[in-house]
C-alpha cells in the first residue's frame, strides 16, 4: 500500500482530475444561460468514475487480459441487443436507461477493444494476411453495430484503432494498400447508404461553411467566432457572449473548446493543451512487464489523442462536425467513466514494475 502511494503517478492523476473538474466548470458555464443543470450530473459521474478507477486499478493486469475475449463478446452481445430492442433518444439508439440513468453504451467499447487488440498484437510476430483479417474483423464488428445505432462519432473514433495497429506492428505493404482501399470503399458505401441527410449536410457544410451559414455551417462559423473573439486572455468566466446568447451549438459537448476559447482566451486554451500534452507524454513513459501492456498503453493513449485532435479540429472548422466530445472535459458521464477505466489500467501497468 505504501509503495502503491509512493509510486503512483500523482501528477498525471492530478492533471486528469483537473481536466475533469475544469470540464464541470465549463459545462456549468455552457448551460448557465439556458438554465441547464448538466454540470450536476457531471459531478455525480465524476464520483462514479473515481470509484471505478479505484476498482479497476486494484485489478491485476493479467486478470484483465485473460478476460479480454469474454468481455469483448459480452460487449458485442449488448450492442446487438441495443439495436434490436433499444430505446430511442435523440434519433439514435445509442442510449439505454438503467435504473433511470442514461448510458451511452458505445462509449464503453473503447477499453475492452483496446485490451483485446493489445492481446492479439502480443501473440503475433507480424501482421500477415490471417492476423490482418482477424484484427479488421475484431474492430469492424463493433464499429458496424455502433454505426447501426447510429452513433457516427464513436464509430469513427474506434476506426482509429486500425492505423494504430498498423503503426505498432510490422505490416506487409500490400495490406496497407488494402486498408486504404477498404477505407475508401467504406466511406463510399457509408455516404450512399448509411449516412442520414443531416449527417451528410454536416460533412458538406464543413467544406463550405459560408454556404450553410444558416444551418450546419452556422455551427462551425459560430464556434470560430467564439474562439477568435476570446483573444489572448478571454472574456472571463460566464461572460462569453457567444456561449451566453446561445450562438454556440452543443456547447457542453462537441464545442466545449469554444467555450474555453471564448471565456479564457489563448492562455486558457494553452493551459488546457499543455495539460493534455503532459498527460499523453507521461502516460507513454512506463516500464512494461508484458507486450500486452505495452500495446494497450499505446493503443489507448493513441485513441484518446485521436479523439482529442478530432474534437479540437472540429471546433476550429478543420474537421466535419461529427459529434465527438473532448476527452475528460466535455459533458458525458459514460465517456468520462470509460476514460477513467482505461486510465486506471494504464496507471496499474505503470506501477506494476515497482510492486513486484
Amino acid at each position, binding site marked *: 500500500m505504501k509503495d502503491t502511494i509512493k509510486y503512483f503517478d500523482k501528477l498525471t492523476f492530478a492533471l486528469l482530475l483537473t481536466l475533469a473538474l475544469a470540464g464541470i466548470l465549463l459545462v456549468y458555464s455552457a448551460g448557465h*444561460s439556458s*438554465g441547464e443543470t448538466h454540470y450536476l450530473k457531471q459531478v455525480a459521474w465524476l464520483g462514479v468514475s473515481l470509484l471505478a478507477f479505484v476498482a479497476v486499478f486494484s485489478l491485476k493486469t*493479467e486478470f484483465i*487480459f*485473460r478476460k479480454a475475449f469474454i468481455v469483448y463478446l459480452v460487449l458485442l452481445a449488448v450492442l446487438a441487443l441495443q439495436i434490436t430492442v433499444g430505446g430511442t433518444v435523440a434519433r439514435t439508439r445509442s442510449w439505454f436507461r438503467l435504473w433511470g440513468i442514461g448510458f451511452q453504451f458505445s462509449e464503453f467499447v473503447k477499453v475492452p477493444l483496446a485490451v483485446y487488440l493489445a*492481446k492479439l498484437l*502480443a*501473440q503475433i*510476430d507480424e501482421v500477415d494476411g490471417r492476423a490482418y483479417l482477424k484484427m479488421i474483423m475484431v474492430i469492424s464488428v463493433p464499429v458496424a453495430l455502433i454505426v447501426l445505432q447510429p452513433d457516427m462519432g464513436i464509430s469513427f473514433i474506434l476506426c482509429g484503432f486500425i492505423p494504430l495497429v498498423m503503426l*505498432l506492428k510490422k505490416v506487409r505493404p500490400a495490406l496497407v494498400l488494402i486498408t486504404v482501399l477498404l477505407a475508401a470503399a467504406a466511406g463510399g458505401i457509408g455516404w450512399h447508404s448509411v449516412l442520414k441527410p443531416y449527417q451528410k449536410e454536416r460533412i458538406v457544410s464543413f467544406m463550405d461553411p459560408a454556404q450553410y451559414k444558416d444551418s450546419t455551417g452556422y455551427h462551425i462559423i*459560430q464556434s*470560430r*467566432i*467564439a*474562439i*477568435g*473573439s*476570446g*483573444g*489572448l486572455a478571454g*472574456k472571463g468566466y460566464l*461572460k*462569453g*457572449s*457567444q456561449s*451566453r*446568447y*446561445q*450562438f454556440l451549438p452543443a456547447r457542453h459537448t462537441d464545442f466545449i473548446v469554444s467555450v474555453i*476559447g*471564448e471565456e479564457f*482566451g*489563448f492562455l486558457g*486554451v*494553452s493551459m488546457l*493543451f*499543455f495539460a*493534455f*500534452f503532459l498527460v*499523453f*507524454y507521461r502516460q*507513454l*513513459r512506463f516500464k512494461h*512487464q*508484458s*507486450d*500486452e501492456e*505495452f500495446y494497450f498503453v*499505446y493503443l489507448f493513449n493513441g485513441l484518446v*489523442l485521436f479523439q482529442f*485532435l478530432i474534437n*479540437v479540429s472540429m471546433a*476550429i472548422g*478543420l474537421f466535419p462536425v461529427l459529434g465527438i466530445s473532448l476527452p475528460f472535459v466535455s459533458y458525458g458521464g459514460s465517456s468520462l467513466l470509460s476514460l477513467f477505466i482505461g486510465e486506471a489500467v494504464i496507471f496499474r501497468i505503470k506501477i506494476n514494475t515497482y510492486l513486484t
Partner: protein
Amino acid sequence: MYLSKRRLTPGFIKRAALLSTVLLVVLFTSLFVVFWSIQVVQNAKYQRLAMRNITRKVDLPAPRGLIVDRSGRVMAENRINFTLYLVRENVEDLEKTIRRASFFSGKSVAAIRQVIAKYRKYAMFYRIPVRSNLPQGTVVFIQSRQEEFPEFEIGIEPNRTFPLAERAAHVLGHMSEVSEAELAGLDPGAYGPSDRIGRSGIEKQYERFLKGSKGEQTVIKNSVEKVQQVSAETKPVIGATVVLTLDLDLQRAVEDLLGEESGVVGVMDLASGGILALVSKPAFDPEIFSREMAGAEWQAIRDDPRNPLQDKFLQGAYSPGSVFKIVMALAGLQEKLITPAHAQYCSGSQVFYGRTFHCWKPGGHGTVDLFTALQDSCNIYFYNLGQRMDIDTIARYARMLGLGEASGIDLPNERPGLVPDSAWKLEAFRQRWFPGETISVSIGHGQLNVTPAQLLKLIATVALRGRMPTPHLLQRIERQGKVVREFSPEFKRVDIAAEHFEKVVEGLFRVVNQEGTGRAARIPGLDVCGKTGTSQIITKENPQYKRLTKEKRFMPHSWFVSFAPRQNPRLAMVVLVENGGDAGAIAAPLAGQVYRKYFADERHH
C-alpha cells in the same frame, strides 16, 4: 501469468517512445500555432463578428402625420400605445411566464402559446409582441416590479387614434397590419411585420406622406449586468400633416342632420371643387382596426346589411332617377331637339313600342314645357325626348357630364358606375339595344347607375354653367411647417353652350322656388336650385308594390342634388337617403337645413 512471451526488443520500445514524443511535440506545437493565429492574430475580426451577434438594431416607430380640417382641427392623431413584449432569453420558467403573459394581456394561455410558437425561429432576445394597447394600470404594475418580471418589456409606441370616432370615418379611412405577402412588395426600410398601413380613405390615399420615417437604435447587451446600452440612434421623423378641405363644423352638422338614416351627403365649395362635408352613413369607428378586434365584433360590422364599411359616396351604385332629367334636358337643348318653349301633353301615361309608360302623377301634368317638366319632374316629357334621341347620344352627354367614370376625387377605391349604350349592350349581352330601353333610361332608370360623387360633380357643373370641377379633399400637405404640396383647383369646360345651362338652371330654380318637387329646400333670400330623384328598389310593375313599399327596406332611395345661390353659386350638394321614400319630403328639406346652417354660420363669422 501472461499468455505471450516478450518479443518486443528494447530498440523498438526506445524508438516508439522517441517517435511518440516527437509526434506529440509536433502536434501540440501546431495546435498552439493555429490557436494563436485564430485567437490573437485574427482576434479583431472575430471580435467584430461576435459583437455583430450581440448588437441588435431596434426600430423606433415614427408617429404618423396628422389629418386636420381646413381650419387645423385635428381629425386623426397619435396616442401613446404601450405594447407588452416577451423576451424568451430572460424566461426562467416558461409555464409561469405563459401564465403571467395571459394574465397581463387578458389573452388565453393557448393564444399566448400560439404567439410564442409564431416567433420560434427568431433569436432568443427577439422582442415578441404579446399585446398592444396595454392598459395603463398593467403598465405601471409591470414596470414597478420589473425585477420580478425580467422576461417582459414594455414598448412605448405611437398609435393611430381618431378622436372624432365615427365622424368623417369614410373620408379618413382606416389602417391595419401589413400582411407577410404585402411586405415582399414594400420597401423593407419603411415597413416591417406588425406595422400598419392605410387601407381606405385619406389614410390610404396619402399613405406615403402620412407615414413618417422610422428611427433606429443600436443596442448592445452587456452580458454581465444585462444592461442595455444604446450605441447609436437615429430619431424617428413624424409624417407630414394632411390638411383637408373639410369644414368640421359643417361636417358635424350634416352628420347630425342625417341622423340614423342610411345615406350620403356631399357638399362642395364651388370656388375650388373642395369638399366641405362628406358623410356616408352608417359609419364605423376607424379605431376598431387599431385595437385587437374580437372576431364577433368584426363579423358584426362586416355582415351589417346597411354596410357601414362601404363609402357610399364613392362605392354605392344607384339609379339616378329623375336627377338624370338634367342630363336629358341639356342634351336635348344642345342637340336642338327641343327649345325651352317646346310643349308636350302629359295625360299620365303614354304607350311606346307597345308598352305603357307612366308619369309619376296619375292624372298627368297637362301641357308642359321644359321648365314645368323639370319643375314637376314630368316623366312623359322626357320619355318623348328620349324617344327622339338615340341611346348613344344620351350616353355621350351623360359621359360628357361625368357619369360612367370615376369623379377623380382624391380617395381610393372609387367605382365608375355605368352608362349603358348600344356597344355596351352588345358586349355584355350579345344583343342589340331595344328602343324601349331608351325610354327607361331617359328618366334615369334601366341599366344606368351612378355614384353620389358623380351626381355632385354633375350638379356642380350645372351650377357653374359648364365648368366642371374635379372634386377633392386635399387642401395641402405640410411637412415641418413647410407646404410640400398644395391643391390647385381644376376645372374642365363641358362642350355644351352656357345658355343651355342657364335654361336648365331656370328649371331647377323653379323646382325649389315655384312649388316644384323640391320646394321643401326653399330658403327665403337664398336662391336654391335643385332636382329631386327617386330610385326604385322594386319596380312599380311588381304586383306587391303598394304593400311592400310600406316596409322601410323596400322604399325607394331619395335623391336631391342642388346648389345655391342661383347667381354666383357658392355651394353644390348631393343628398341621398337610402329607402327615404319621397325625395321632396326627406332629401330636399335636409339640403335646405344644410344651406341654412352653412350660410347662417357664415353671417356670424
